[in-house]
C-alpha cells in the first residue's frame, strides 16, 4: 500500500471528482427531459445554464480530478513515496484547481456564464468565469510539476534506467497537457480576461477560437491517455500476463505527444479565416494521430489472446471465453474498449475535411463524444474506481459491491447505447446539437427527424434516465467504499493496485529522451500554426465587443 499522505491527496481528488460527477450527471438527465418537452424549468434556471454546468463539471472537472487521483496513486506506487515538496505542491495544486472550479461553477449557477464549456467569444461571461477556468489550468500545472518533480528525483537516483511504464506514460500525458494548455492560457489571459473586465473593448474572435481548439483537441487526449494507461498497464495484470510490448506501448504514447496537438483546425473546418491549405494540413496530421490508436487496438487484442491461450483457450476465438468476465474491474474496461471502436471510427469521419459538413454541430457530435469520453474514458475510470477507492481507504470491495458494479456498468452501457445511437442517427438526419426543445415551428424536416424508431426524443430520454440511474449506483458504490464498507483485515480482503509487469529489456533508451519528442512536437506545432495564426493577427478585422445573449 502506498504512503498515507499520498492516499489522502488521492482520496480528496476522488471526492471532488465524484461531487462533480453527481451534479454533472443530474444536469444531464434534466437536459433529456427538457428536450423531450416533458420538463419545464423554473424561471431562474435556463437550459443553457444546465448544459454549461453538464459540460464543465463532467468533461473538465470530473475527468481532471480523477486523472490526478489515478496519477498520484500510480506514481507513488511505481516510483515510491513522495517527498515533502511533492506532497506540498500536490495539495496546492488540488486547492487551486478546486478554487477555480468553485469560482466557475458559482458564475454558471448565478447565470453569469451560460456560454458552455467552449465559451466562444463574443459571448461574454462574467470575468470571474474565465479567471476560474484559468485557475483550474494553473492548479493542474502545479499538480503536474509536482509529479514531474517526483519523476526527476527517481531518474536522478536511477541513472541510465528506463522508468516504469506507468511513470513513463504519466509523464507523457503531463507533457501533452502542459503544451496543450498554452493555447487556452494565452487566449484566456491575453484575450478573454482583459476584454471581460473591460480593459479592452474588443476581441479577435477567430484567433480566440483557434487558440481554444489548439487546446481543445489535445484536451481529449488528456482524457484518453489515462484510460490507455489503464488499458496498457492494469488490464494485463487482471488477465495474469505481462504488458504485450513495452517498447510499442511507449512508442504509441510518444506518437501522441507528436501528433495530438497540431490538429485543432479539424474542429474549425467549416469556418472562415483559415485557408483550405492549412485546414487540410491539419487534417493530415489528425490522421497521423490515429496510428498509435491502431497500435493500441492490436496490443489489447494480443494481450487478451495470449492470456486466454495460457488459460487453455484454443482455436481462433477460444481465448475469448477464457477472459475473466466475472471480474468487474476487467469487464468494465472491456466494454469501454468496445465502445471506442465506433467512437474512434466516428472521429475519423469528423476529421475527414468536407465530410465534416455532414456532421458538424449536429447531434452526431454529441453522440460521438458520449461514446469516446462518455464511455471509453468514463467507464475505464469507473472500472478503476471500483478498486482505487478501497485500495486507498483500506476497505473491502465486497461481493455485494462487485455485483452492484456489474449492474452499474451494464446499465451505463445500455443507456449509452440507446442515447448515443439516437444521437448519431438524428445528427446524420440534420438535427442540431446544443438546443433546447424545438420543433422549428413544426417544420416538416424537423418533424421527420424525431419520427424514427431510434431517432426520437423518447429513446434519448430513456437512455438518459438509465444513465442517470447508473450514475447514482456508482455514487452509492463510491460512498460505500470511501466511508462505509468494512475495513480489510486479512491479506485476501485487501484490495490491490493491479499493476502489470512490463519487460523493458528490449526497449530502446531513446524513447525516454523527452527533449527529442518535445522538440519534434514544437516543430510540428510551428509548422501547423505559425503562418495561419500570424495571418489571423495581422489581417484581423475590427474586433468584436461582448454580447450577453442569455
Amino acid at each position: 500500500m502506498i504512503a498515507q499522505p499520498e492516499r489522502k491527496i488521492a482520496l480528496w481528488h476522488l471526492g471532488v471528482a465524484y461531487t462533480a460527477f453527481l451534479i454533472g450527471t443530474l444536469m444531464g438527465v434534466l437536459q433529456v427531459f427538457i428536450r423531450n418537452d416533458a420538463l419545464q424549468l423554473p424561471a431562474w434556471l435556463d437550459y443553457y445554464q444546465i448544459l454549461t454546468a453538464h459540460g464543465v463539471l463532467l468533461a473538465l472537472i470530473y475527468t481532471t480530478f480523477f486523472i490526478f487521483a489515478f496519477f498520484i496513486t500510480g506514481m507513488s506506487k511505481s516510483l515510491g513515496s513522495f517527498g515533502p515538496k511533492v506532497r506540498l505542491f500536490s495539495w496546492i495544486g488540488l486547492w487551486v484547481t478546486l478554487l477555480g472550479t468553485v469560482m466557475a461553477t458559482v458564475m454558471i449557477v448565478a447565470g453569469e456564464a451560460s456560454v458552455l464549456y467552449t465559451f466562444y467569444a463574443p459571448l461574454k461571461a462574467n470575468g470571474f468565469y474565465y479567471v476560474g477556468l484559468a485557475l483550474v489550468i494553473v492548479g493542474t500545472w502545479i499538480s503536474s510539476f509536482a509529479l514531474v518533480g517526483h519523476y526527476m528525483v527517481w531518474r536522478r537516483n536511477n541513472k541510465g534506467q528506463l522508468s516504469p511504464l506507468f511513470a513513463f506514460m504519466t509523464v507523457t500525458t503531463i507533457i501533452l497537457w502542459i503544451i496543450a494548455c498554452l493555447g487556452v492560457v494565452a487566449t484566456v489571459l491575453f484575450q478573454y480576461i482583459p476584454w471581460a473586465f473591460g480593459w479592452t473593448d474588443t476581441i479577435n474572435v477567430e484567433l480566440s477560437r483557434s487558440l481554444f481548439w489548439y487546446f481543445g483537441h489535445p484536451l481529449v487526449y488528456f482524457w484518453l491517455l489515462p484510460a490507455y494507461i489503464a488499458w496498457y498497464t492494469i488490464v494485463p495484470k487482471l488477465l495474469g500476463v505481462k504488458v504485450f510490448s513495452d517498447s510499442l506501448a511507449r512508442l504509441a504514447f510518444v506518437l501522441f505527444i507528436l501528433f495530438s496537438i497540431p490538429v485543432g483546425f479539424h474542429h474549425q473546418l467549416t469556418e472562415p479565416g483559415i485557408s483550405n491549405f492549412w485546414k487540410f494540413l491539419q487534417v493530415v496530421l489528425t490522421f497521423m494521430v490515429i496510428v498509435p490508436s491502431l497500435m493500441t487496438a492490436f496490443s489489447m487484442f494480443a494481450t487478451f489472446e495470449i492470456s486466454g491461450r495460457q488459460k487453455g483457450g484454443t482455436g481462433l476465438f477460444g481465448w475469448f471465453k477464457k477472459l475473466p468476465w466475472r471480474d468487474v474491474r476487467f469487464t468494465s474496461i472491456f466494454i469501454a474498449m468496445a465502445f471506442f471502436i465506433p467512437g474512434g471510427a466516428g472521429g475519423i469521419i469528423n476529421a475527414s475535411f468536407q465530410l465534416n459538413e455532414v456532421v458538424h454541430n449536429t447531434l452526431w457530435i454529441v453522440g460521438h463524444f458520449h461514446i469516446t469520453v462518455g464511455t471509453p474514458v468514463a467507464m475505464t475510470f469507473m472500472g478503476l474506481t471500483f478498486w482505487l477507492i478501497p485500495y486507498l481507504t483500506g476497505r473491502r470491495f465486497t461481493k455485494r459491491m462487485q455485483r452492484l458494479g456489474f449492474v452499474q456498468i451494464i446499465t451505463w452501457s445500455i443507456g449509452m447505447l440507446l442515447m448515443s445511437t439516437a444521437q448519431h442517427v438524428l445528427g446524420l438526419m440534420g438535427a442540431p446539437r446544443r438546443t433546447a426543445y424545438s420543433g422549428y415551428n413544426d417544420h416538416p424536416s424537423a418533424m421527420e427527424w424525431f419520427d424514427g424508431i431510434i431517432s426520437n426524443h423518447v429513446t434519448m430520454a430513456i437512455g438518459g434516465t438509465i444513465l442517470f440511474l447508473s450514475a447514482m449506483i456508482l455514487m452509492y458504490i463510491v460512498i460505500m467504499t470511501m466511508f462505509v464498507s468494512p475495513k480489510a483485515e486479512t491479506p485476501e480482503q485487501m484490495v490491490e493496485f493491479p499493476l502489470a509487469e512490463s519487460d523493458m529489456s528490449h526497449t530502446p533508451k531513446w524513447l525516454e529522451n523527452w527533449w527529442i519528442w518535445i522538440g519534434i512536437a514544437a516543430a510540428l506545432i510551428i509548422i501547423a500554426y505559425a503562418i495561419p495564426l500570424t495571418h489571423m493577427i495581422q489581417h484581423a478585422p475590427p474586433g468584436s465587443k461582448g454580447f450577453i445573449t442569455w
Partner: protein
Amino acid sequence: MDKKQSDHDVNLKGTLVSVFFVGIVIVAMWVAVYLMYLAR
C-alpha cells in the same frame, strides 16, 4: 533491435481477425458517411 523473439512463439491469429473486424467497422462507417455526403 530484438531478434531473440520469434514470431512463431505467439499465436495471434485471433488478434489479427479481431483487429480486422475493427478495420471493417472503420471503413464501413466512413464509406457510409461519404456516400451520404455525395448524396447531399
